[in-house]
């Protein structure tokens, strides 16, 4: 039988182990006897020896590098841990492994190309990035109030479908990381319905580039409303299954209750928002407090819990999915009423980028547009100019925030009056929330780190941008 064994070259420690078991083979420390470097040798032995040796090293603090490719860190998140046994003495998050320079890229693309870039930041909830960027540009253009009703409802619809998809992934991967693989199966199954719906509407499963300044890219497909009705029906029937799997399960309760505790004071000090803030019982939801896209016209509840822990955040995510289904059901009615209305603002330049059609291979120019381009020289010239130059946005700076699945997603946009953004900064909730990891994990167990991360739900694409 072979085993892994620690051999510390410090003098005192060598003496201890030597008296316990003279049969262990040591390297000759030679002149390097004052170097405290543990060596792990693989050789024959017995577990008793290993245990005895480890007992002697019980007061040693070891540094563990968790990530950046650890399967339970939700992506490329690296945690530097100091562990005393299984107790976390300190945790330092290290990020940047998925940095793609998105904010720099914005400055070299036109305003209309912005959503295509923004959606790639927090890719699990990409629609929200598009939405916050488009709302900020709308504000700079001064057209916030001129956005057609149908465009706003379509924006809300896609955001809520995306919220459900994002929460499903947060809940599912959180469940799987603590061993509840059935939860992940249910979540992926339901998320697939959401993604299929988003594909039917926008042409793409992810990175949709659907919400644009001035409205949305494409109107609902012919069978869009039927699909939406079917989606809400399925979600309403299937989502409660998740609660049944987990909430009363004793193992699940022990893994989540009292874990990753962060009360209101801590949330305020660390600027924490979203489900984590609401798990302290504070009903702060930007959809209610600072409504955008006409959220004030929808009926829904702000979901809270009062346990301040991972269990509360789990319940909040389940409840929010139910509320999102409620909003989607209201979207059905509103879309029926607004059938035939425009899906984007009627403006020669801004609206030109929302005049697309769906093909078998995704978004593209509509056949009518292509026919016109090939039959009229002037139309072609105008089209090329619009597509290469884009539209001008008045100079100034704005900050727009939306309630993304993880919390407040902000977008600070500076325009110099030209056809490209001067500066775009995305304030991702995950980036802010990673700061809260030390305070909710230190002093706890190593295994609780996994639940802490999944309860905050940072997505590295958004954290690193």
């Amino acid at each position, binding site marked *: 039988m072979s085993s892994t064994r620690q051999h510390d070259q410090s003098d005192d420690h060598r003496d201890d182990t030597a008296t316990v078991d003279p049969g262990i083979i040591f390297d000759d420390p030679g002149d390097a006897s004052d170097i405290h470097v543990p060596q792990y040798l693989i050789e024959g032995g017995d577990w008793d020896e290993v245990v005895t040796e480890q007992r002697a090293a019980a007061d040693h603090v070891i540094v563990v590098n968790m990530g950046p490719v650890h399967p339970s860190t939700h992506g490329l998140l690296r945690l530097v841990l100091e562990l005393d046994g299984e107790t976390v003495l300190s945790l330092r998050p290290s990020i940047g492994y998925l940095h793609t320079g998105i904010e720099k890229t914005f400055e*070299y693309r036109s305003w209309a190309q912005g959503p295509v870039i923004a959606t790639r930041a927090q890719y699990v909830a990409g629609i929200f990035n598009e939405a916050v960027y488009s709302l900020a540009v709308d504000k700079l253009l001064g057209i916030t*109030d001129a956005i057609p009703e149908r465009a706003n409802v379509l924006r809300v619809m896609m955001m809520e479908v995306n919220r459900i998809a994002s929460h499903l992934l947060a809940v599912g991967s959180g469940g799987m990381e603590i061993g509840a693989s059935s939860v992940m199966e249910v979540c992926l199954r339901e998320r697939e319905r959401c993604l299929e719906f988003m594909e039917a509407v926008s042409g793409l499963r992810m990175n949709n580039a659907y919400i644009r300044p001035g409205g949305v890219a494409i109107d609902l497909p012919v069978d869009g409303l039927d699909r939406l009705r079917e989606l809400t029906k399925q979600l309403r029937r299937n989502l409660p299954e998740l609660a049944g799997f987990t909430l009363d399960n004793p193992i699940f309760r022990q893994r989540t209750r009292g874990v990753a505790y962060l009360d209101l004071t801590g949330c*305020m000090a660390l*600027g924490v928002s979203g489900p984590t803030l609401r798990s302290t019982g504070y009903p702060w939801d930007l959809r209610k407090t600072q409504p955008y896209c006409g959220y004030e016209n929808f009926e829904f509840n702000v979901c809270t819990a009062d346990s301040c822990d991972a269990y509360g955040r789990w319940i909040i995510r389940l409840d929010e999915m139910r509320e999102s289904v409620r909003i989607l059901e209201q979207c059905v009615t509103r879309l029926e009423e607004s059938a035939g209305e425009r899906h984007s603002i009627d403006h020669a330049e801004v609206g030109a980028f929302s005049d697309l059609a769906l093909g078998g291979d995704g978004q593209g120019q509509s056949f009518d547009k292509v026919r016109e381009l090939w039959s009229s020289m002037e139309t072609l010239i105008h089209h090329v100019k619009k597509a290469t*130059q884009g539209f001008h946005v008045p100079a*100034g700076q704005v*900050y727009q*925030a939306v309630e993304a699945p993880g919390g407040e997603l902000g977008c600070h946009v500076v325009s110099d009056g030209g056809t490209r953004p001067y500066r775009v900064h995305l*304030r991702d909730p995950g*980036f802010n929330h990673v700061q809260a990891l030390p305070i909710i994990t230190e002093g706890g167990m190593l295994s609780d780190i996994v639940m802490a991360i999944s309860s905050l739900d940072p997505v590295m694409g958004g954290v690193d941008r």
Partner: protein
Amino acid sequence: MSTQFPERPQSRARRSRVSEAAVSAAQAADTMQVTYLGEADGVWGSGSGTGDVSGFGGLKRTIALPQQSRPPYGSWFDEALAEINSEVGAAVSRVFVYYGELTLFTSTERLGDLMRTLRDDPHLRFEVCCSVSGVHYPEQPGSELHVVYELLSITHNRRLRVEVAVPDIDPHVPSVTAVYPMANFHERETYDMFGIVFDGHPGLARILLPDDWIGHPLRKDYPLGGVPVQFDGATVPPPDQRRNYRL
């Protein structure tokens, strides 16, 4: 039929004959306080003087952000400014109100006092510093680098922006982490991307880029790079060196 954009108040004031004199006087007074961003000439940029066959090559245009606002500012802004001025004197050097958002310019010396007042004063109570980010204005000598703080008052449900400018030869700004602990990562990111040094920050290190990275990518003089793709004898320049519209 095309939707008309609503006019911004500023442009309406400029067109009105009655207030034209007042506006031009105000403009003259504020000449030094315009956020100047440079000049654009011709239709095509990044190759100015070459390749512009549009006939618009002689056009010149000054690029500037909207000017400083004058009281009354409307909404809750006047009340809040009165409160700020009574608490921290003349900490706010300039006030901008556009798109319904309030921006307060301050100096690096008064930033700490202003932030503490904004957080602690019961009439202000901006508890959350949502975001800290930088903007690089290379055409503004002496104040090239701006730091922008986005504050949120959950108590009053208000938002506010605080802005401070520093020269890029000495880019030092006091850290606000003592007032807003949540600004820790945001300041590290701003340091990483703009090279703005936040004095008093507990651990100012690069956060997104590797520690040994050279340069600060979000500065305007940092090239975007790009992969040189070769076609039969020709090359595709990096995106920041391609011809594009400027006006």
